[in-house]
């Protein structure tokens, strides 16, 4: 146990999160008699959850800054329908459609950011209003119809890395991506260790680093193998690629840039931040705006995946995203949370969903189990905090931000019931 803890930086919570995810995967792998870790299922899992995970990235920043965003599902739906209409009726090409969607997201974000940051209305209220507003807009603009999108637009939601180069029996681009991921992990871990040593900070023992690298790289390579050996025509999915890039970018922004620091500062103690020269209104505005842009992106990916925009797209997404963030260790009071933690939190939910589905558990029981998992995860966190330990999953970033790399760390994903529900609706 101690040795394991050392591997993950000695932080119980962070250890717990990763451990829970791995345990879930192993459990379902056995329970489903090997149907969990098959290329088809893993690809499916990724495709079915990437948009929720993208929302979780924006949501964690909102929650770190001390707010919440309830409108993301409606915003995603509104952006989705507008882009679908623009492509169908105005005949604009798919890339202009995406740009239009992002711009519309930014505009909506500016609207919500204005009320939250500059007028000072709690984000809960602003986005509750937004939830109604943009759902209404979605149905008004789309006349509550289903609007199909062309095949080239569907690529962002359901495309795969193309086959290139010699026939190796694998998807070559996926292999390349996996190897790049491994190289990146090894390189950054070693570099971090070297600088820490040079600065005289504490470094973990050699065997810890080696074991950790072996485990992480093993996971990446295994995931690569699964993605590269899917049914012909499938490989690493495009939404997964978008997600991986976003995780890298936002992980970096939140932990390494001035803006990221300011978000944590405002959420941790707004007054102290202001008296240190942080312009908290600007920060709040940006955080809300960023969330809406990502919601727009998620909406477009979903439309691409489901080949059409509908009036009930995105119903309940905000709750999935918020749950992922809190399972991932963020604090309701703000100031605490990490991008990578939220992704792990989202994956826990996704794997759970997928595994239960494979086992043929009904939607009713699935919801009960998911509810309990959310409650227990946060209860665990609260208990740890009351014991005076630093439970904060924030440490995750320190040891795991880099290792994750460009490739998904965990070989798993689920088709969410949410999607099924909204399809049926």
């Amino acid at each position, binding site marked *: 146990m101690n040795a394991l803890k050392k591997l993950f930086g000695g932080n119980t919570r962070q250890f717990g999160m990763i451990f829970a995810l791995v345990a879930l995967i192993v459990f379902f792998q056995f329970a489903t008699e090997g149907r969990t870790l098959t290329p088809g299922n893993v690809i499916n899992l990724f495709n079915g959850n990437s948009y929720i995970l993208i929302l979780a990235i924006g949501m964690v920043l909102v929650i770190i800054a001390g707010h919440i965003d309830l409108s993301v599902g409606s915003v995603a739906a509104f952006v989705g329908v507008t882009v679908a209409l623009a492509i169908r009726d105005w005949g604009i090409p798919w890339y202009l459609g995406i740009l239009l969607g992002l711009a519309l997201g930014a505009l909506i974000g500016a609207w919500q950011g204005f009320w939250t940051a500059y007028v000072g209305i709690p984000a809960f209220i602003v986005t509750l209003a937004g939830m109604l507003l943009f759902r209404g807009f979605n149905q008004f603009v789309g006349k509550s119809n289903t609007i199909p999108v062309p095949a080239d637009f569907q690529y962002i939601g359901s495309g795969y890395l193309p086959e290139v180069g010699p026939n190796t029996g694998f998807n070559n681009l996926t292999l390349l991506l996996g190897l790049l991921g491994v190289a990146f992990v090894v390189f950054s871990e070693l570099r971090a260790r070297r600088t820490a040593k040079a600065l005289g900070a504490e470094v973990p023992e050699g065997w810890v680093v080696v074991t950790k690298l072996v485990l992480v790289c093993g996971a990446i390579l295994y995931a690569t193998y699964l993605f590269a050996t899917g049914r012909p025509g499938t490989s690493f999915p495009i939404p997964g690629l978008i997600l991986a890039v976003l995780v890298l970018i936002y992980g970096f922004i939140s932990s390494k840039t001035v803006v*990221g*620091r300011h978000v944590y500062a405002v959420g941790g103690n707004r007054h102290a931040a202001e008296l240190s*020269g942080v312009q908290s209104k600007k920060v709040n505005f940006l955080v809300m705006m960023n969330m809406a842009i990502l919601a727009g992106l998620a909406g477009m990916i979903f439309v691409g995946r489901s080949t059409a925009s509908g009036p009930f797209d995105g119903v309940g997404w905000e709750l999935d995203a918020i749950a992922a963030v809190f399972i991932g260790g963020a604090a309701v009071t703000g100031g*605490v949370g990490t991008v990578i933690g939220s992704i792990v939190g989202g994956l826990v939910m996704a794997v759970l969903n997928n595994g239960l589905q494979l086992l043929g558990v009904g939607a009713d029981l699935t919801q009960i189990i998911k509810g309990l998992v959310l409650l227990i995860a946060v209860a665990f966190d609260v208990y740890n905090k009351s014991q005076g*330990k630093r439970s904060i999953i924030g440490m995750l970033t320190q040891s795991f931000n880099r290792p994750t790399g460009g490739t998904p760390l965990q070989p798993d994903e689920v088709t969410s019931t949410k999607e099924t529900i909204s399809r049926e609706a």
Partner: protein
Amino acid sequence: MTSLDTHSDPVILEMRTITKEFPGVKALADVNLRVKAGEIHAICGENGAGKSTLMKVLSGVYPYGSYTGDIVYQAEVQQFKDIRASEHAGIVIIHQELALIPELSITENIFLGNEPVKRGVIDWAEARTRTRELLARVGLREDPETPVKEIGVGKQQLVEIAKALNKSVKLLILDEPTAALNESDSQHLLDLILGLKGRGITSIIISHKLNEIEQIADSITIIRDGKSIETLDVKADGVDEDRIIKGMVGRTLESRFPDHEPKIGEVLFEVKNWTVGHPQVQDRMVCKGSNFFVRRGEIVGFAGLMGAGRTELARSVFGRSYGRFITGSIYKNGKELHLKNVKQAIDAGLGYVTEDRKSLGLNLLDDIKTTTVSAALHKISKHFVVDTNKEFTVAEQYRKSLRTKTPSVEEGVAKLSGGNQQKVVLAKWMFTDPDLLILDEPTRGIDVGAKYEIYGIIQQLANQGKAVIVISSELPELLGLSDRIYTIFEGAITGVVDKDDASQESLMKLMTSARKTA
């Protein structure tokens, strides 16, 4: 010297060989405390010495089983499992941060969790009557229906005591009761504690204000580094402040202020006709046409009672972070500055160390290194990307030069003692390299040893040619530290006195009366 001879006085409380450990730290090691019934017993020690921990053990915040040793109270070994249990036994603790609910009235606060019930319904008439009696006992003339947020800190403290009395307290523990009070409120509170003693209530008081302890305590237990060092009998041993300090720091402080030869240059910073309106209350001015200047290398004190407008003045100058309808002009090196926000103020070379460390000065979720660089991130970043190696190096450098006591700069600031937190805050502002640094109550809630070090840091800053403003409620501190002192009364500057001409009496006169000279 824990082996007290058995006196004839009955002992109400004895804590025997209390040991309390936190992960990695032994906060208390074999601490002994013996309190006689009906006395006022002071506990002195530097910040982080373990005073508050000891009181938390006593009051059940750290329940039985989480420490070792015995609590013998009224001749019985107690096993408090929470605060309710200790309150039930008559032990009430009043924390430094008051535990009142601002929106509720005095009555509601006093009876919170203890409401008088008649046939299942709260009997407010009864509650009000009893509140009136309790308020009379603590000498507070306020309507029991007044919301607590509308009365000052001093009066809130009295409400806390009334609340304790209502619980038929036998042993009252006061943690830094006068830290936030001005002199007259403090005096009133001390008199009240003496009065309670007359009625047979035993008090334990934790305070850094040694003059107060000398004034009211019967005996003093000194705690240093988690150990009980000695217990002094104030009258029999002829204890004075120097004697207490010697016990607390384990050595005699030659002087409470480091020697300092000021090197004062030309006027660096000047404020003219500064007027500030209250942020909420219409037509109320918190600063009225203030004029002041600070020279290079000079430490200027601002003296005034609580609520006189010192903090308001400082914060409004510091990038308009307080108040509205601000008029007046600020000059630095003779050039006028137009500061619209804090960022511009920092860029213009101003720094402001807040009065309230925990709610305004620090993000308690942060660690030392992030806090150290948080006001000058641009200095360690390139293209908006923070260089975390530089961050570590900078924090490490300040940890060493300010001698911050911490295992590492990656430690959370919430875990540090007040003195060390203040050093981290100072480091944060020193790293912005300001020309003018305003320090608002820089040593509040900080123990004697750390105070001395912080005075040294302030003097060092002045020696580097920076202008320094120190706002303080403690006149001896201002007299010891400043080269020149402005006095403020009701938002107006009422006088300025050179160090050599100033005395506590002359300052106090200026702080409590309208303008005489300017």
